[in-house]
């Protein structure tokens, strides 16, 4: 209870900066990886995620504790990411250059490396091209491993809509990946 989100916000509102630090440390990875999935650039994602926490801090007085922290934070973060994508032509750069390639861990090394890299790159390119609401749900499910309930709470949509959106997002992705094996 002492360290739950709502209590930490309450303490932060009273000026306890250590409480806010705990909150930042709890969600920093989610913030960074969601931003990375959405904007596709590590430096920008890092910057945007930190900026989101600063905005949250400045808006602490608006939080009345009736809803969960993360969905609130998520809205702020994704609005920043959306604005960033609008302002800059980062879409073209999205995970398509050599630097971006280095940002992904290597798994399943036993597979044909070039084939796997090519498929992976194609997949990332296609995720980038998805409509925002599809890209968002793919990022939450595949890059952050959120459960349907967590996605539902974060996006403020029913679990049925989560499944439906995932279906259409994956279908679109599948259609675009013509060269997918099988």
């Amino acid at each position, binding site marked *: 209870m002492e360290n739950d989100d709502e209590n930490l916000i309450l303490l932060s509102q009273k000026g306890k*900066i250590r409480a806010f*630090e705990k909150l*930042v*440390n709890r969600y*920093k*990875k989610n913030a*960074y*990886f969601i931003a*990375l*999935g959405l904007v596709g650039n*590590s430096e920008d994602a*890092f910057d945007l995620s*930190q*900026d989101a*926490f*600063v*905005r949250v*801090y*400045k*808006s602490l007085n*608006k*939080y*009345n504790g*009736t*809803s969960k922290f993360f969905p*609130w934070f998520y*809205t*702020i973060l994704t*609005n920043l990411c959306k604005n960033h994508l609008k302002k800059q032509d980062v879409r073209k750069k999205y995970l398509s250059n050599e630097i971006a390639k*280095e*940002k*992904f*861990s290597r*798994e*399943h090394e036993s597979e044909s490396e070039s084939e*796997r890299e090519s*498929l*992976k790159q194609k*997949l*990332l390119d296609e995720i980038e091209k998805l409509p925002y609401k599809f890209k968002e749900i*793919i990022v939450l*499910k*595949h*890059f952050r491993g959120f*459960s*349907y309930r967590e996605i539902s709470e974060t996006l403020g949509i029913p679990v*049925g809509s989560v*499944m*439906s959106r*995932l*279906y259409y997002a*994956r279908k679109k*992705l*599948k259609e675009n*990946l013509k060269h*997918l*094996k*099988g």
Partner: protein
Amino acid sequence: MNCEDIQKLMMAYLDEEISENEKDLVEKHLAECEKCRAEFDSFTQLKEVTDKVKLADLKEDIWAGYWKGVYKRIERGAGWFFLSIGAIILLALGVFQFFKNLFLDPGVSFIVKIGICFLAFGIIVLLVSIIRERVFAFKKERYREIEK
């Protein structure tokens, strides 16, 4: 259950977020419907590929310094706020003193005083216009909707 109902459950099946009861329904439908079975197979293949793609983590020292970065931004924001308030107070005082001296100075002609007044009035109108625009933009700003 028709194909449309199964589509959603197919996702839950793939992501292992399905109840035993629903699982039976999906399996029964897939056994009977070739179209849905083919679609399910292709979704399974897609998931195998997407599961292999992971966003790489940052180095531990970068994570260790993350909070410091946030704190510096908060601190800087507060710094800029107080600096702005101070600057506005000093500027207002300076402007007041300037006009006070100007109007009390008999050496400055009436026409120059009038000219300066119009100039100042123009600047004030422009500033008010900009501030009003900013306030209007703030009202429509999306973050205002994030009050919780």
